[in-house]
Each structure stands twice: as C-alpha cells, then as structure tokens.
C-alpha cells in the first residue's frame, strides 16, 4: 500500500513509523534464527560473535562443530562432550517420525473422509475428539500416557513413542484433509461409481489424487510434530530412545556447545525446505480445486 500523493506530512510520518514497526517485528521474528547460522561456523567455543568473526577473518570460521555433530571426536581442541548421540538421535527421530506419520496419515484420512460425508451423526463431537490432542497441554498428555503406557508395558519402548506421536500428529492430518475435502466435488466419485469403479479403486484413482496436497501437508505437519516433540519422550522414553529433540534438551540443560547451533542451523534450513514444499502444495491444491488465489 503506497502512500497517496495528497498525504499530509503527519500521515507521511505515521506511515513511516508504521513501516518501521512492521520491519522491527519481522526482524524480531527471524533475527534469532539467522543469528545462529554464522555462530555455528565459529572456531571459538563461546556462543557469540567474536571480534575476529566481525572482521571476517577466515581463521575465525571452521566446520569443527559440524564434524563433532557427526560424531567425529578427533578435534584436539574440543573439551565438551562428544558422542555419537546426535547421529543416533537423528536416526531414531526419523524412524519414529516416519512410522508415526504413516499411521497418523492413514487414520487421519479415514477420519476426514468419514467426517466429510453428508450424513455423519455426532459430527461436532467426533471432530472435537479428533482435534483434542492439539488442545490438551502436552504436559497433561504426557502424564496421562505415562501411567497408561506403564500398565501396557509400553514405557521405554519404540512402540510406545510411535503410538504417542501418532496421536499428536492425527489432528493435523484430520484438519488439513477435511479442509481439502470442503471443496471436493462429490459428483466426481458418483460419476466414477456409475462408470463401474469399486469404492476402493474410486478412492485411489479419483479422490486421492485430488486430496493429495492436503494429505501431504497434513503428513508434513504430523512429521514435524513428531520430529520436534520432547515432552512425551522425556516422560515415556527410556535410555535407548534418544531422539534429536531429547538430545538437544539435554544439551541445553547441561552445557550449550556450538554443536547444538550446528544442529539448529541444519534444522532451520530443513524447515525452510519444508515451508517451501507446503506453500507449493497449497497453491497446487487451490489450482486443482479451481480456487483462484485472492
């Protein structure tokens, strides 16, 4: 919104103040994430911009914290704890995240398909239950699961963590897929059925391709939730279940070494990639459903 030519000086001044405020807020949002990146390449073990770094001295930068993150402990100058835990954590997080996402997506599609049908008794109540894991504070969810999973011998097992993360991811899939189904033209499935397709085939050939963007973005949300989840892991995970967030948590609690910042940098870059994918998917979905971007 540009300023009209007839704006008074006061309006002009206010306009620039307003733009400055907006710039500061946006700066406030991204600044910490950006600041982490250069510090992760620092030689020094302190989490700050050293004077050498500000002078752009090439001696002040190194990849040592990235090497340490990968479990390479050969660097003689490192005094902080160095272990394979980051790699194990990343592997575990991926493993748990992928399976939990697959489960959550499958269950979530079922729920969304059911909830989007024209006749559905107790639609509101069921929707509320489906979304409830998003509403209940994690600490309460974790406490409840701790007692319940202890009874089922699921504490300190991968199965327990996967089930818990599936529950946390489910609402995201339900929300996104239900949203995609809002604009879904039911006559398409009817047409497919009249042409002789069975319900399963119709689903995979007609419905699925159209709701796919919603499914993928829901799955991404579910994955990122699992990948970023720490409270439940702390409550029901055992010593074997080191996940990436858990490793970060213990890193933050004990001593923050720049290794954490290198992990953080990688995760920031990963999040930018995910963001791009979701944004592209959203546009594609709107295009497929014939909604013009406003």
């Amino acid at each position, binding site marked *: *919104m540009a300023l009209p030519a007839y704006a008074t000086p006061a309006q002009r001044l206010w306009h620039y103040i*307003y733009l400055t405020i907006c710039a500061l*807020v*946006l700066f*406030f*949002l*991204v*600044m*910490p*994430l950006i*600041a982490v990146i250069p*510090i992760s390449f620092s030689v020094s073990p*302190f*989490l*700050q911009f050293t004077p050498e770094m500000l002078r752009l001295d090439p001696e002040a930068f190194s990849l040592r914290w990235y090497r340490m993150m990968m479990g390479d402990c050969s660097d003689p100058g490192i005094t902080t704890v160095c272990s394979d835990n980051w790699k194990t954590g990343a592997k575990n997080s991926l493993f748990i995240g992928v399976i939990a996402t697959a489960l959550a997506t499958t269950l*979530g599609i*079922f729920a969304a398909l059911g*909830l989007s*049908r024209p*006749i*559905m008794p107790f639609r509101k109540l*069921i929707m*509320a*239950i489906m*979304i*409830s*894991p998003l*509403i*209940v*504070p*994690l*600490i*309460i969810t974790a*406490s*409840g*699961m*701790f*007692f*319940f999973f202890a009874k089922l011998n699921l504490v300190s097992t991968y199965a327990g963590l996967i089930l818990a993360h599936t*529950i946390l991811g*489910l609402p995201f899939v339900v929300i996104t897929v239900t949203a995609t189904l809002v604009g879904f033209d039911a006559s398409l499935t009817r047409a497919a059925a009249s042409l002789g397709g069975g319900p399963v085939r119709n689903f995979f050939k007609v419905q699925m391709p159209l709701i796919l963007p919603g499914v993928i*973005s829901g799955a991404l*949300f579910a994955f*990122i939730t699992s*990948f970023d989840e720490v*409270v439940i892991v702390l*409550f029901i995970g055992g010593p074997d279940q080191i996940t990436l*967030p858990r490793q970060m*948590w213990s890193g*933050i*609690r004990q001593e923050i070494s720049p290794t*954490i*910042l290198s992990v*953080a940098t990688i*995760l*920031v870059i990963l*999040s930018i990639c*995910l*963001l791009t994918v979701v944004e592209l998917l959203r546009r594609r979905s709107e295009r497929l459903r014939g909604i013009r971007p*406003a």
Partner: protein
Amino acid sequence: MTNSPPASVQPLLTADGIPLKTSLQRSMRRSKLRAIFLVLPPLIFLLSLFIIPIGNLLTRSTDDTLINYQLPLTFAMIDQWDRKTLPEENLFEAIYLDLSSLNKYLISDNFADSVDPNDPAWRVRIPKKGPYRDAMIEIDPRWQSASTWLPIHEIAMIGVNAQGTERERKNKARRVQFKICAYLTPLTNADCTKLYKVLQVWDGASEPDEALFEALYKDLRSANKFLVGKSSTRMNYGKPGFKSLIKKSSRKLKKVSEPPYRDAMIKADKRWGDVAFWQSLVTMQEPQTTGYYLNAVDRKWNKDHEIELQPAERRVYVMLWWRTFLVSLIVTVGCLILAYPVSHLLATLPLRYSNILMICVLMPFWTSLLVRIVAWMVMLQQEGVINDTLVMLGLPDENRLPMMYNFTGTVIVMIQILLPFMILPIYSVMKTIPPSYMKAAQNLGAPPALAFLRVYMPQTLPGVGAGVILVFIVAIGYYITPELVGGKDGRLIGNMVAYHMQKSLNWGLAAAMGSILLAGILLLYWIYDKIVGIDNMKLG
C-alpha cells in the same frame, strides 16, 4: 401394487418397485453406516490411547484409596474418638496393627465400610519365625482350601509357561511376580518372588502346605513395608512430619509385641502423643479426597472438616496460578500489539511482496521449538548477542542486562514463539476486508484515525478474538520454554505438574493441577468454538 384401491394416494416408486421413501431411508442409512465405519478406527484409536489415559489421570486427583488399604482398622475406629483429647489405647492398638501386622491382607473383607473392628482375626498374631500356617488359617479359614490359592497359582503358571528367548521369559516372570502381589495387595509394583517360586512346584490341588504359607507371609511382609512407605508419603501431604514419624516408629515398633501400645508408641516417638497428628488422620479417612484440589490452591481440610489456608511457608500454588495467568496475559497482549500492524501490512501489500514477508512469519512457525529456544539463549544471555551489541553501543560492561533465566526471558521467548499464532488468524480476516471501506469512510469526512477505529478495526475483531484465545490457550499450558529459559521466577503451572510427576512423585497433586488447567483450557476452547468454530481451524 397395481391393483391397490384407487382412493388411496399412490406411493412414489423407484425403478425396482420399492417405495421411494423406503429406498431413500435405506440409502441414507447405508451412507450413515459408511461414515461411521470410516470414522471408527481413528476414533477407537484416540479413545483408547488418548481420552482414556487422560481420564485415568484425572481420577488420580481424587483417589485416596491407598491409605484406606493401609489403615482399615484405624479408620474403622477413629469415628468413636472425640478428636480433642489424646486417643485411648484401642486406637493406638488399631494403628499399631494396621502398620505392622499382615492380618488386613488375609481377612477377606476389610475395606472401607466392611471393616469389622470386633473381629478377633485382627488380633491373631503370626509368629515371626513360624510356623505360619495355623495362625494364618486362624485369621481367615479360607486360606485352608486350595481354591483360595488357585487364582494366584494360575497367574504364576503364566510365567512358568512363557515362551521366547531367555530375556523375554525373565521379563515375563517378573511381570507375573508383580501380578501376584497386585492380586493379594493394592500394590501394582511390589514383587512376590517367594510365592512365585513355591507356586511353581505346587500342583494346584493338594492342601496348601507350610512352604506356601511361609512364602505368603514373607512376600506380604515386604509388600507391607512398601505400602507403609507409600502411605506415609501420602500422610505427609496431610501433615508434614508424618513420614518421618512412621519411619522412625516402625523401626522401633518391631520390638513392641505386647499391649499396652499407647505408652510404647509414645515412647518410640513422642509425636504420637501430639493430638495434631491424630487429627490430621481424620481428614484422610475418605477413599475419595478433594484434598489434592485444595492443595493445588493452597488450602486444606482441618480436623473439623473445614477448609483452611495452608501455613504460610507452604503457600506457593496460588502465586503460581496467578503468575501463569499473568504470563499468558502479557504474552497474549504482547503478541496482539506486535501482530496487528504486521498482519495489516501483509494483508494490504500486493501479493508479490506479502508472500516474501509471509516467509518471515512462517519460518519460525516451521522451525523446531528447541532450535528457537537455543537461538534465543544465544541472543539473550549475559555474553549474548544483544548484550554485546549494547556494550558496543556504550552500555557499561558491568551493567549487562539479565534477560535470561527470569520472567523477562520467558515472556520474550514466548512472544516470539506464539506470534505466528496471532498473525495468521488476524491476517486471514484482514484479507477479506475490502480497502474501499476505509476510503469510503475517509471520503465521507472521517479523519484516518477515526475511520480506522470505527470502520476497519471492528471488522478485524473476529480474527483478533481467534488469535487471542488461541495464543492464550497455548501459553497457559506451556512447559518447555519456561523450563529452559524461565529460571526460578519464570516457572509456570505446567512446570509444577512436571515437577510433581517426575521429582516429588506426588501424582495426586499433579493430577489435580492438571485437571484444573485442563478445565480452564476446555472452557477457553469452548469460547473459541463459539467465536470461530473448530471446523474453521486452518493451518499454515
């Protein structure tokens, strides 16, 4: 069909001759069934692994049965006491028997109203070194018959017949030992190792012999020790000092075997002569308690069944609730102030530019929470980026601002983390307001400020309402951020729940605090549903 009387109205028929109404109903029913069939698997999944565990947690907030299992005789007799003077010998005897004898496990009916204090079985003494059989049968003759032992024998056989690797069988055997104890006592985590061993060799039919009784006695004794420990922790919540009193006296009471117990117990620990301890026992009598809820708001029951304040040094929770509310409020207002202009800018800029700026909003939203917290630690700490910059700009080095591990830190970090939750709903509402409205208002003579206040702002209120409630709901249950950057005076109620879950193990109190928190959140959620509707919840 065709020769129906012409007077009646011909029902509409479908192609296959069924009345349209029936056919429609049938197809509607089929559609409904199909919908239910689709929803059922995820619904059952959530109900069984999420809703039931949460409900289960909430029942813990009122559950006080453990102490009733421990002190059945005492609670059966305490009503006769006047609650003012020191109790008579009979009550001392009751608590002595409850704490040190195993008779309560052996008498078949001994819980709450069904305890009979006049039953001679309470006073039967089992000799410490045996023989155990006769005494135990005297307590309750049902132990004589093999059928009483059969259920635990069956449990034991599950462990014996377990298949699998060495480690799996060992685990199974251990679980079976817990199960045997859980059958005999209210404890789920005491293990009956001796019984497991002898039950393996028992054939399940012959009359139970001394070996079985010995194992029963020994396992029950160790289980009782465990139960005394647990229940004295519970008694300590009612009156501080109870745990050490029980611990100390149970050591000394081993030597006491003859009445009178009153003098012996007071000699063992003089706190038994303090009426206050007895009075606090009265408040623990009911198997359901509201005590944890009262504790969560710094109140407690006194001996006359009135609610009173906790002693001053134990009042922490009201302050914590208040702080949690305050932090959530500050964070919500802070987010609103910061989000409003940015949302406006995003909504009014041409799409090309606003898309780029939108990335600034969405990037933190997609980044791991812990990464954002680490980033803020780098920014805010004593030697952090902000303080370094301030020093470079001329702040004296010794005046570095403390922005971490305190209230300020929690608020700053929470605002940044929750800001996208405020921007997105406000933005999506502002997007729908045509810019011509403002222009029209100004054309009609309103100065820009007035036009904004009277025309633009009222239209954004649905978005503001949604954002405010959403941020408040998320903020009030926060745990990770205050735990990591909050330090001592930035802790919120969520941290207290975690503390009681993991450190102090006062699960009843944790559950009570969780229930209050959950009730508040559900109320806000209900309001959110009224304003926005959960169906309109959008992501990204």
